[in-house]
């Protein structure tokens, strides 16, 4: 399959669904490995739905907000590179179901 | 549906702001405050001018400004809704003040120190003490 070039900054905040249409979160971060000159993508970090939580994450970890439990449900999920189908960058789709993704608690 | 929602909220906001506007009594007090402010500014300019504390250009320019502001305020007075009796009384007071400021302006323009001193002394002086109490400075 010919390689397709995608603009990573346009993937940001894109909503990701799995094959059955269930929401998995929004693309918040992309982890990669740099060995030598090569930068190889390893996984996609899907953040919570609410945009504000992603921006203000450090504030929500502060004691006054922690008491409100805001930081608890601001979890995320990680999709390995082969679990993500980006053939259509506008609508990223998982190649597996949401439950198979690794859950991350910040 | 969206436009109807927007129209009703706009109506709501406007009515809140309108009724919070000033009552007739407040408007009258406002006009009086403006009149006293510029009458006293003129007196202050006259007194400082005689004392040689301010240059002529500044004195004449500020007195012209006082004149303009008093005229603008009396124009605004005609538009404000208030009892006619109050409007007439305020109109007269504004006109009298403007006339005094005008004579003072001419005297300063002609560097006629004697009449400036007389005008400053004779024009009705605001009651300093009551004003100080009003803002808890006494």
């Amino acid at each position, binding site marked *: *399959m*010919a*390689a*397709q*070039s*995608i*603009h*990573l*900054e*346009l993937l*940001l905040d894109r909503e990701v669904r799995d094959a059955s249409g269930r929401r998995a979160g929004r693309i*918040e*971060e*992309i*982890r*990669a*490995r*740099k*060995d030598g*000159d*090569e*930068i*190889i*993508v*390893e996984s996609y*970090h899907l953040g919570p739905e609410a945009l504000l939580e992603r921006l203000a994450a450090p504030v929500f970890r502060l004691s006054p907000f922690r008491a409100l439990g805001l930081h608890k449900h601001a979890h995320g999920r990680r999709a390995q*590179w*082969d679990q993500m*189908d*980006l*053939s259509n960058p506008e609508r990223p789709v998982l190649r597996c179901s949401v439950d198979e993704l690794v859950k991350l608690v910040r | 549906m969206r436009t109807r929602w927007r129209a009703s909220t706009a109506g709501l906001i406007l009515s809140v702001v309108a009724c919070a506007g000033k009552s007739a009594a407040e408007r009258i007090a406002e006009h009086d405050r403006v009149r006293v402010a510029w009458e006293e500014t003129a007196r202050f300019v006259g007194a400082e001018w005689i004392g040689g504390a301010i240059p002529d250009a500044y004195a004449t320019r500020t007195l012209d400004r006082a004149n303009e502001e008093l005229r603008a305020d009396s124009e605004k007075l005609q538009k404000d809704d208030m009892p006619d009796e109050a409007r007439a009384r305020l109109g007269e007071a504004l006109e009298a003040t403007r006339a005094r400021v005008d004579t003072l302006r001419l005297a300063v323009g002609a560097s006629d120190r004697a009449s400036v001193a007389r005008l400053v002394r004779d024009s009705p002086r605001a009651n300093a003490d009551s004003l100080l109490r009003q803002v808890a400075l006494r």
Partner: protein
Amino acid sequence: MDIALVRDLLDKQLVDREGEPLGRVDGIVMSYSADAPPRITHLELGAQTLARRLPNPFRSILAWLGRRLSPRASEPYRIEAERIIQLGRVIKIDIDGARSAARETERWVRDHIISRIPGS
């Protein structure tokens, strides 16, 4: 070495070999194919890249404006990912900044506006 591309690369300050600023990482180009892990091929700079990242009403206006004003300057400038020497607070690129096209607009402003004013 593990990199978080958005946190450590996107929107970061780029500098050339001598540490002179080149701009910020406005975009990152990734080559994607179904059977191999995606690879970062280029970093991208330029007004067009920035315009593309805006929500729609502004995107089309700015893109149109960019083309009209200075078609050459708003052409996105790409830097091969292999040229990245060092990551950190700023990202050092193995490029001679003075001649690189990344500084196209800076040179244009300098030659056409600033140097015309005495004492610049």
